[in-house]
């Protein structure tokens, strides 16, 4: 094992993977509790257009996806407010558009389908040093932004109306949360791929929420599940020569199943509807 970590590519994969996993898990707890779990899925489809655009224009796909996903996240918020749409409708509109634009660009260019596949299915073991730098800085910025606004985000997530009455600017925080999610989804594409990155947002959070008795423990448990899944998935990928993204998501699911079993074992009963 020690020898394995002597490889630069593996060090880069573990460093990026762990940071992204923690960012996904922390944001995931807020999103799942807000019933916005599918936002990650929608934004990953939008990021697909950004990756295709980056490859089409021959700029760093991760950077192009970042710009497109953040712009789309803000556009979703504006559309939701101004057109009076539900959040999932606005996300549905933009995610479909994102996939359509991505497919159009791939069809026009004809020569980057192999690279696009790497983004669709994830390839953390092939992460470039420049991408690692970008990932470390952005993931640290996402976690710092959450830490700075932790109390207000928690208050807004639990009781939006009381938070507003206490002076919390919920509209700004909604936008911040969307932008942070967009950034994290783009970073997570390298780990799990566009098709599976939403799992890193939803499943560790759902697992953490099964066993937590406080919000802090939910965040900690969710982060632990995400880190375990990413590191374990990388290990399985190397040992069994299987795709890391799929191994990570399957481990996430096993962790969720285990936490569900723990909850059942404690005899926690569902409240009557």
């Amino acid at each position: 094992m020690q020898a394995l970590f002597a490889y630069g590519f593996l060090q880069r994969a573990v460093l990026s993977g762990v940071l992204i996993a923690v960012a996904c898990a922390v944001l995931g707890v807020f999103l799942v509790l807000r019933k916005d779990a599918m936002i990650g899925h929608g934004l990953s489809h939008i990021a697909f257009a950004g990756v295709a655009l980056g490859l089409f224009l021959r700029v760093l796909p991760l950077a192009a996806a970042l710009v497109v996903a953040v712009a789309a996240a803000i556009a979703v918020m504006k559309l939701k407010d101004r057109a009076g749409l539900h959040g999932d409708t606005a996300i549905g509109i933009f995610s479909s558009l994102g996939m359509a634009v991505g497919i159009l660009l791939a069809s026009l260019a004809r020569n980057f389908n192999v690279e696009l596949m790497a983004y669709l299915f994830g390839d953390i073991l092939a992460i470039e040093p420049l991408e690692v730098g970008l990932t470390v800085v952005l993931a640290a910025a996402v976690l710092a932004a959450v830490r700075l606004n932790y109390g207000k985000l928690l208050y807004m997530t639990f009781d939006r109306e009381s938070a507003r009455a206490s002076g919390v600017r919920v509209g700004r925080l909604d936008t911040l949360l969307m932008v942070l999610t967009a950034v994290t989804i783009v970073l997570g594409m390298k780990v799990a791929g566009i098709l599976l990155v939403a799992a890193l947002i939803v499943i560790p959070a759902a697992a953490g929420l099964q066993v937590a008795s406080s919000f802090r423990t939910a965040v900690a448990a969710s982060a632990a599940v995400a880190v375990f899944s990413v590191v374990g998935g990388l290990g399985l990928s190397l040992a069994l020569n299987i795709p890391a993204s799929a191994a990570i998501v399957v481990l996430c699911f096993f962790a969720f199943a285990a936490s569900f079993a723990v909850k059942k074992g404690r005899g926690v009963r569902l409240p009557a509807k």
Partner: protein
Amino acid sequence: MIALRAVSFRYDGSPVLVDIDLTIREGDFLAIIGPNGSGKTTLVKVILGLLAPTSGEVRLFGKTPAEFSERGKIGYVPQKATHIDPFFPASVEEVVGMALMAGPRQGGASGRESRAKVLKALEEVGMSGSAGTPIGRLSGGQQQRAFIARALVTSPRILFLDEPTTGVDAGTQDSFYEMLDRLNGNEGLTIVLVTHDIGIINKHVTSVACLNQRLSYHGSHAEFCRSEVFRDMVTRGDHLVAHEH
């Protein structure tokens, strides 16, 4: 403390509040009563700045809701507080502490100071032993006390409670109102209580505002009980709840 001048509010063109003049003074225990759909909750939301009035002026401690930044001076327990997500993984201590984290520097207090304030607020509502309990595991009455502790943790000067005893059993309601009496009488906290339970007026409040889009009465509870407005309300029923003791 709070002043409304000619405040009206329309929703989708329909009038909800019409030409409301209302003054709330320091130390008041005011009950805002009226039938369902009379605009009680809307009135509180307009006062707090959660809804902007269509016309008229609202002043909180001399400032408009938009200008008013000392939000810790106001405690608020909304109507739906009893309908929280039962799976939300927050301990009672976390829920009460939320109000301290709403300010510009997340309350400006250290973790130890914040914790002391939270524990004091819990003690005030008789929930000292429940700090670590998940909020979803408390009964409706205990949850409501926890939400009042959250409203009290910033040491407010005025407390707004919107239908606080909905879904709470009669025995718990009695001890709940006794707690409000103590906060108002002994600690001088101004209380504004939205209710359609006219039975509490005799026992607890000092003044009454009777609302049905317009304010048909605002004055002392004693005069209210002798007024025609009260007699008409009791005669008509108006979906109000009579207290049985």
